[in-house]
């Protein structure tokens, strides 16, 4: 009988020693996340909807002007990094950019045969 009581006592003590701090930590996290915007954003992402700080981050803010015209017409003194257009020439696949060579067949414009795909080399 003593053995049983001792065993129960030890297990209860261990449970209390581990469980109470854990419970307290969970409670603390729940309270802090209510006021943490990052945590809210994380939750939103996990739930499938993004919270955007700004929807106006299109790097292509020179529509209608062209990539050379802004230089010809002078900078617009806004100190924004409006010259970040030339750093990723190889980024294909956006909505308006053409499919790169090798990803699809050349256009059926009557100029190409049906043989070997285009080969390109830069020296």
């Amino acid at each position, binding site marked *: 009988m003593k053995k049983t009581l001792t065993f129960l006592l030890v297990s209860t003590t261990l449970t209390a020693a581990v469980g109470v701090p854990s419970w307290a930590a969970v409670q603390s996290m729940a309270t802090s996340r209510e006021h943490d915007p990052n945590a809210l954003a994380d939750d939103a992402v996990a739930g499938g909807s993004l919270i955007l700080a700004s929807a106006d981050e299109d790097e292509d803010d020179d529509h209608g002007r*062209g990539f050379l015209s802004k*230089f010809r017409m002078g900078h617009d003194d806004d100190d924004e990094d409006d010259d970040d*257009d030339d750093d990723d020439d*190889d980024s294909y696949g956006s909505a308006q*950019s053409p499919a790169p060579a090798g990803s699809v*067949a050349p256009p059926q414009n009557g*100029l190409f*045969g049906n043989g070997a795909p285009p080969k390109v*080399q830069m020296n």
Partner: protein
Amino acid sequence: MKPLLAALALGTALTAPALALARPVTMTTTLNTYGGDGAYLALYVTDQSGAYAGSLWMAGGKSKYYKHLSGWYRATGGDTSQVDGITGASVGQGRTLEITLDLADALFDAGYTLHIDAAVEDMRDSPNEIAVPLTTGNSGTPVAGRRYISSFVYDM
């Protein structure tokens, strides 16, 4: 056995003309050291009446710059499907772009002209920098460009 032979013969008969109607053509474009960023190049063809017949290559992947390849842009309205599958990276100054394409025989000695438009950021556009008639006689003969292209040659 006979159906198999017939199928093979039919396959050969259908394939052989297709192979004979096109040939590999290597186009080599060498740029000057013009002191600027990489050049966008549009290689396209016009027919004997000067009408746009199609594109052969686009060097430069961002379509928002294509308006500066003004000859090509005027002919296509900037339609990027014209260069799907034939688009590569822009070409740095002093570098050589070598493209090998399987081109229809009908393009040669039939009044077609190959054009190259060039554009470089912060520098002047250069439409129709190269215009060379596509003939077997012109094969292997280098042509000089006006601004950014040091030389262009096609070999067939």
